[in-house]
């Protein structure tokens, strides 16, 4: 029974080593990519069109990239939240045992916090774009 259940299988896989580092760095990576796309595209756009160019095209791009990035982080967050839900131990923030299960829960918790931080940072990068009108 447990062999066929994909959820149990995933827990097995991740708790086998306890170090699924991808889930930790995925949200900061999305943040970094979002930051680069926003700044680099605006820089190129303004360099090509001059100081007085309106930013409306870039605003659409930034909002689209923000929606994508927040979508990605939400997906990651839901995955990490589930780890929290199906914890094999009790539902607290104590990680005192040197076991793969504890490491997995701890890293998932860290990754979830990073998701929150990255989402906040992405929103902060986007807010100014709603208020800026030109390349000046």
């Amino acid at each position, binding site marked *: 029974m447990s062999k066929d259940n994909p959820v149990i299988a995933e827990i097995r896989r991740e708790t086998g080593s306890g170090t699924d580092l991808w889930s930790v760095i995925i949200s900061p990576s999305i943040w970094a990519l979002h930051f680069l796309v926003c700044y680099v595209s605006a820089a190129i756009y303004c360099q090509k069109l001059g100081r007085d160019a309106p930013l409306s095209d870039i605003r659409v791009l930034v909002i689209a990239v923000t929606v994508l990035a927040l979508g990605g982080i939400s997906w990651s967050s839901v995955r990490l939240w589930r780890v929290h839900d199906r914890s094999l131990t009790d539902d607290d923030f104590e990680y005192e045992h040197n076991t793969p299960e504890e490491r997995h829960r701890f890293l998932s918790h860290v990754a979830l916090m990073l998701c929150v931080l990255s989402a906040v940072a992405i929103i902060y990068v986007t807010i100014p774009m709603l208020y*800026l*009108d030109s390349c000046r």
Partner: protein
Amino acid sequence: MQQGQRCSFLVFRLAPLACVPLLVGCVSEQSTLHPAGEDAAAIADLFWVMAAGTVVIWLIVMGITVYAVLGRKRPKTERFADRFILIGGVAFPTITLAALLIFGLALLPDWVRSDRPDLRVHITAEQYWWRVAYEMPDGSLANTANELHLPAGQTAEFVLNSTDVIHSFWIPNLGGKMDVIPGRTNLWRLKPTEAGVYRGVCAEFCGPSHALMAFPVVVHEPDGFEAWLAGEAAGVEERRGHALFVSTGCGACHAVRGTSADGAVGPDLTHFASRRTMAAGTLPIAPENLQGWLVDPSHHKPDVRMPGYASLEETERDALVSYLLNLE
């Protein structure tokens, strides 16, 4: 004990003295908190909102601190602790900072402005002074320096340039500051709302005399500004007239005492404008009579020894007339 008393005496009696330097900030001629312009008013609002918010947050934090130290010791649930950190440490700062960011961004000036300003002033910063040139309606520039005059209720646009290092143009009572960068023209607009005398400064360290690079800013009522600007143009014509008086040779025959014109062939003109007539009772003193006389003296007075100056341009004769009519 003795020493303890001495210390507390020093702290309680002398502490107010430490606040004296802060009072310098109360001089209103160079103060963002005494706004006399639209931008400065927005900045002052931002300051007061932030100051009030800071006080509230400070009181909350201090209240919690005092409670934590002096309050009843009672175990809190882990759930409460988690919530407390989540709300007080994550949600509250995030929302507060976002609100401040939005409030600040909403104050950003509208940079794309196609409308013409009411007045355009060219400012060139140099170590350690300011060139000021007012753009006149005909496109010419009226030059002055180290003092700025502006009309209240009108938008002035500053065209900022530097000849040497980076300076910054700042009139705290009227608005924010703008860097003045060599090789780059920065535009900056201010709209003074209240007449008065303020103080502008260089707000970017530019060398040893950076602090000695200030300028008075006089905001006039619009009529007063027009009068001032007209006054700036005055006197220029006379001085040009004096230069022509010397260079075209008038001074070889006529004397104007106190200048290099010391000729003794013709009449002394030192107080020409205060006389009742010109050309020995021939004509009343008037600009058109002087013009006519300069073109062809013998037309008015046959066999006069003074030659005509029809070869001068009319504007040059205007300048000479202006000079002569001011010799009172």
